């Protein structure tokens, strides 16, 4: 895109600045739009599974429901509890939202369609997603209220626990790909399965790792069955209890942007990203971004399906799964994977 703005007569620095700013705005707007649509899909899927209709009033098939909700919260009054720590109380939703958007900078939507094609892309995502916990902790503390504080404690312990096993899963993927660059990881998956299938998930060593990663991404985004941070029967609405109007909406949007991010990471790391499922020339006629969006959407459907079907975990079960099952398992797989790659001469 820099080259395009340079052709308009701008110097390289200005062209780069304008191109980057344009990229940021386009990606943010598209992510926000997808979040609005995906919230609608989520509610429709949940409705269908519960044999209800779901949103069906605003717009054709209720398609505009999310936008109506957005307008509604925008017009509401922001209530700040008098006992709250005002600055941090207002900062917390902004951090959640910003962090949820910032991670999209290194996501390649198609071959070469990425805002920042950096060498440490995967580490950047880990770093940014580890920031996400601050929005929750700060909101819980600043609300100066008991339930939000409990919820913040739960959320941060949960996020830290599952980040550990996610880290080890990513090590396995990086061992196979030999790079931390997101585009490089996707390109390394071309023809990976017997020279035909694009995607790491077909490998017997990586399939269990994908299962661990998928479940961990449910826990990391605090989706059901791991939504203990917002367990309404125990904690009212968790850390969002004291929030209203736009500050509440920022949490809500950030949460769904994170869910979409996790879906796209599943796609990019294990299911071949923008590559078609099978390495067969006619399938490459379809633009890469279509494959990417299709796969990401498939994972989102799995997220809402799980939301509607699986009962909530108990907190000790959640911790047990993270520390006593996933952590040892992923550690063993890191060792086995590197041993396997050495034995088969993958590193040359």
């Amino acid at each position, binding site marked *: 895109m820099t080259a395009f703005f340079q052709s308009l007569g701008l110097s390289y*620095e200005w062209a780069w600045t304008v191109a980057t700013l344009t990229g940021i705005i386009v990606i943010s707007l598209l992510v926000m739009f997808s979040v609005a649509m995906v919230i609608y899909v989520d509610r429709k899927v949940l409705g269908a599974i519960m044999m209800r209709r779901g949103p069906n009033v605003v717009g054709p098939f209720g398609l505009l429901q999310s936008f109506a909700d957005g307008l509604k919260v925008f017009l509401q009054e922001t209530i700040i509890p008098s006992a709250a*720590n005002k600055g*941090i109380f207002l900062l917390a939703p902004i951090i959640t939202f910003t962090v949820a958007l910032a991670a999209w900078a290194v996501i390649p939507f198609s071959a070469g369609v990425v805002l920042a094609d*950096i*060498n*440490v892309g995967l*580490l*950047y995502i*880990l*770093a*940014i997603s*580890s*920031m996400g*916990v*601050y929005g929750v*902790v*700060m909101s819980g*503390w600043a609300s100066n209220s008991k339930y939000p*504080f409990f919820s913040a*404690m739960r959320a*941060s312990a949960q996020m*830290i626990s599952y*980040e550990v096993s996610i880290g080890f899963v990513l090590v396995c993927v990086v061992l196979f790909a030999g790079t*931390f660059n997101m585009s490089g990881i996707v390109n390394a998956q071309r023809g990976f399965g017997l020279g035909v299938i694009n995607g790491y998930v077909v490998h017997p060593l990586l399939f269990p790792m994908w299962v661990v990663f998928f479940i961990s991404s449910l826990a990391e985004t605090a989706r059901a069955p791991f939504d203990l941070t917002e367990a309404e029967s125990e904690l009212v609405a968790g850390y969002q209890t004291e929030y209203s109007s736009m500050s509440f909406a920022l949490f809500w949007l950030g949460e769904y942007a994170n869910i979409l991010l996790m879906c796209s990471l599943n796609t990019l790391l294990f299911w071949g990203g923008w590559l078609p499922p099978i390495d067969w020339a006619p399938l490459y006629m379809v633009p890469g971004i279509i494959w990417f969006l299709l796969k990401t959407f498939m994972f989102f459907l799995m997220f809402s399906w799980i939301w509607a079907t699986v009962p909530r975990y108990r907190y*000790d079960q959640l911790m*047990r799964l993270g520390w006593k099952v996933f952590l040892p398992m992923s550690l063993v797989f890191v060792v086995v994977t590197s041993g396997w790659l050495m034995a088969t001469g993958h590193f040359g």
Partner: protein
Amino acid sequence: MIQAIAFYFFATIVVGAAVMVIMAKNPVHSVLWLILTFFNAAGLMVMVGAEFIAMLLVIVYVGAVAVLFLFVVMMLDIDFAAMRAGFIRNVPLGLAIAAVLLAELLLAVGAYNAGGITLGTPDGSALQAADVSNIEALGALLYGRYILLFEIAGIILLVAMIGAIVLTLQPPKLGARARQNVGKQIRRRPEDATVMKNPEIGRGVEL
């Protein structure tokens, strides 16, 4: 040009936030300023081309260490008046620490101006290894030349971790052991736990 702007931006925030860490009245605010300092220090590291270290700084310090820090500070019930009461008493100690830090800074600046360190050059541009990414260069050094030191550091950390676990491990009290057998919990079926009774009215149930 843009490097200079970015450098002064990050550097100003690092210094300002670091000052706020000690100036803030509320300890929770202090920790949050500290996190801002870490984050902007990572930005400075990206600028000198050490992107791997920058990401590690954010993942380890911002993502893990500072969270635990914040945890502890939030849970503490701190009396702010009592904390400030001992100011005069602690001034000599504070001045001593400040003097040591100042001496170290002067020494560092002097050593840097004297040259001799090949890490960076006095005009600020770091030496770039051709065509080797950060991670590869670090990996080649750590797992090649410094493998022994690296392994020793790893073993020390392992011992420290085991030590921490042993220290916090409480021996199970006799009789009141709250341990769960997950396999047993999963195998449990409704038939094992419930019985259907159909009592006559006014008779009651005997289980």
